C-alpha cells in the first residue's frame, strides 16, 4: 500500500477527483446538448423559417359587385393536412372598380380579434375592445393603434387572387 500513488502523493487523489468531476460534468453537458439541441432546433424552426407567400384564387371576377365589401376565405401559405379548418384565413374584399380590389385583414390591429363589416354604417367594428375603422381601414374609434392591414390582390385570367400573408402583428407589420 505504501507505494501506491495516493500514498506517495496526497494531492494526486484530489487531482483524480477533480478530473473525474470535470469529466462527469463535461460528459453530462455533452449528453444534455446531444439530446436537447435537435429538439430545440425542431421546435424553433418555424420561428425562423420564412414561408414563401403564395397567391390563392378567391373566385371569378364577375362574382364581385363594384363597391361592395364581402367576406372571403382562402388557405394559408402553409397548408398542413392536419390543420383542418384552421388552415383557412379570412379577409374583407372590396371591388373598388372594374379591375381594382382592396382586401383588408380581418384581424383588428388592437389585439387581433376579427373585425365585422357593417355595410350600412360603412364601418369595420371589432367585437372585443371596441375598435372601429372607416371603410378605408383608417381607425375611427377605440384602441387600435394602426389602420387595418391589407393583403395584395390581383386579377389574373378572370380570377381574383389574394396573396397570403402572416398575421399582422402590431409591432411586426409584414402584410
Amino acid at each position, binding site marked *: 500500500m505504501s507505494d501506491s500513488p495516493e500514498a506517495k502523493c496526497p494531492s494526486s487523489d484530489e487531482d483524480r477527483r477533480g478530473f473525474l468531476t470535470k469529466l462527469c460534468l463535461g460528459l453530462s453537458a455533452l449528453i444534455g446538448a446531444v439530446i436537447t439541441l435537435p429538439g430545440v432546433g425542431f421546435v424553433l424552426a418555424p420561428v425562423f423559417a420564412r414561408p414563401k407567400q403564395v397567391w390563392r384564387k378567391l373566385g371569378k371576377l364577375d362574382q364581385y359587385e363594384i363597391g361592395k365589401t364581402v367576406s372571403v376565405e382562402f388557405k394559408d401559405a402553409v397548408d398542413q393536412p392536419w390543420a383542418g*379548418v384552421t388552415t383557412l384565413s379570412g379577409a374583407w374584399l372590396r371591388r373598388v372598380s372594374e379591375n381594382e380590389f382592396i382586401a383588408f385583414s380581418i384581424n383588428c390591429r388592437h*389585439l387581433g380579434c376579427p373585425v365585422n363589416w357593417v355595410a350600412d354604417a360603412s364601418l369595420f367594428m371589432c367585437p372585443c375592445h371596441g375598435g*372601429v375603422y372607416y371603410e378605408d381601414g383608417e381607425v375611427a374609434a377605440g384602441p387600435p393603434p394602426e389602420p387595418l392591414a391589407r393583403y395584395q390582390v390581383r386579377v389574373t385570367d378572370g380570377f381574383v387572387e389574394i396573396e397570403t400573408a402572416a398575421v399582422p402583428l402590431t409591432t411586426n407589420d409584414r402584410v
Partner: protein
Amino acid sequence: MLGKIWNWIDDRSGFSDVVMPMLEHVVPRDARWWYVFGSATLCAFIVQVLTGIALAMVYVPGGDAAYESLVYITHDATLGYLVRGMHYYGATAMVVLAVVHMTQVFLHASYKYPREMNWMSGVVVLFVVLGMAFTGQLLRWDANGVWSVMVAAEMAARVPFIGAYISQFLLGGETVGGSTLSRFFAIHVFILPGLIFAGVGLHLWLILRHGISEMPKADQPVVPETYKEDYEARLEKTGVPFWPIAAWRDVVFSTLMVAVIMGCAIFAGPPTLGPAPDPANIHTNPMPDWYFWWYFAVLSMLPPELETYIILGMPVLGAIGLFIVPLLSNRGNRAPSKRPWALATVIVGATAFVVLTIYGYRKPWSPDFDVKPLPPEVVRSKDPGIQHGAVLVREKGCLYCHDVDGFGGHRGPELSVIGDRLDRGELVIRINNGGYNMPSFASSLTAEELRLIVDFLLTRTDHPDTDAGEDKSD
C-alpha cells in the same frame, strides 16, 4: 397475511422510518382553519392531473380533429361530460385557492424569515398555474379558443425586439394553423405540469424544512437572529403532530372542495363549446375565462399610448413585485393589525379585482351587433320623417353603441334625452365630426339622412308627451 405483506413493504420502502416522521412533524397548535388553503390547492391540482390524463386519452390535439374530439367527449363518451366538467371546475378551484392561499400567507406575513423561499417558489407556481388556465382555454379549440390564440400572439408581439419571434413560436408559424394547437397542447400537458410538480415539490420540502408558521401575534415580531430557537422552543411546548391532529382540517376542507367541483360538474356541466374554429368566420365574440375578465376590462379602458406598457409591464412588474416581497421585508411584525399597508394592499387589490371583473363582464366594451329596430312605442311618432330617422339610427350603427329608451348598445352615451342637451347644430357637428371614441359619419351619411337622424334625435327629450301630440290628435 396482510400484516406480513405490509411489514415487507414498510421495511423495504422505509415508510415508517422516513415518511411517517415527515407526516408527523410537529406543527403549531394554532394552525387551524386558516391553513387549509394550500393543501386544498394541491388537492385541486391532483384533480387536474387525474382528469387531465383521462381527457388526454380521448382528446386529439390536432387542428382538424380537436373540436370534434371535444364534442365527442362532452356528448358521447361515457362520463366524458363529468370528467370535462371536473377538469374545468378543478381549474377554477385551483386558481381561486392558490390566490386565497397566497392572500392568507401575505396577510399573516408567513413569508418572513426563514420562509422567504417558500413564498418565492409559490409565486412561481402561481404564474405557472395561470399559464395552465390560459393554455387550457385554448385547447377547447372552438372559435373563442382560436381567437384567444390570436390575442395571445398579438400581446406577445408587443415585447420589444423579440416579440415577433415569440408570437411565431406560439403560433408555430406565421398564422394559426396545424402547428399551433399541438404547441399549446405540449405546453399544457408536459411543460407547465412539469414545472408545477417541481415547484410544488420544492414548496413542500421547504415547508418541512422550516415548519409551518404560527398564527401571527402582535407581540411576537420576527427577529431572524433568534427566530429559529424561539420557534423550536414554542413548538416543543405547544406543538402537535401534523398527522392527524392538524391534518384532519385539511382533509375535511379538501373533501368539501372536491364535492363542490363534483357538484358543479354534475349540475352545471362543462363550459359550452362555441362554434367550430373557422378563422374565416368572423362572427364571434371572444371572451376569456372569468378569472381574466378583470384584465379584459383593463385592456378595454387603457389609452392606446399606454397599452403596450401595461400589457407587458403589468404581468412582469406584478410577478417581480410579488416575487421580491420577502426581500423587501423579512423581519418585524407579522400581525395584520401592525401592518396597515399590507392590509390596505389586500383590500384595494381585492376590490379592484371584483369591480373590474364585474365591469369586464357587464360593460359592453364593443358595439352590440344584435340590436333590434326601435319599436313604435319608443319612436312615439307617426311623422314618416321621424320614423325614417329612427330606422336610420339603427341602420347607420348609432344604436350599436347608443341606448335609446332601453334599446341599443351601451358603448357610447345614452341618447334617450339627447334632445334636451344638444340642439340641431350641435348634433350635426357631433355626428359629422365624431369625437372621442365615436367615428365621424360625414362621409357615410347623405345630407338628407343626417337631417332625418337629427330630426329623430331632437324628439328624444324629457317631455315625451309633448312629442306625442300627433298621437293624441288621432
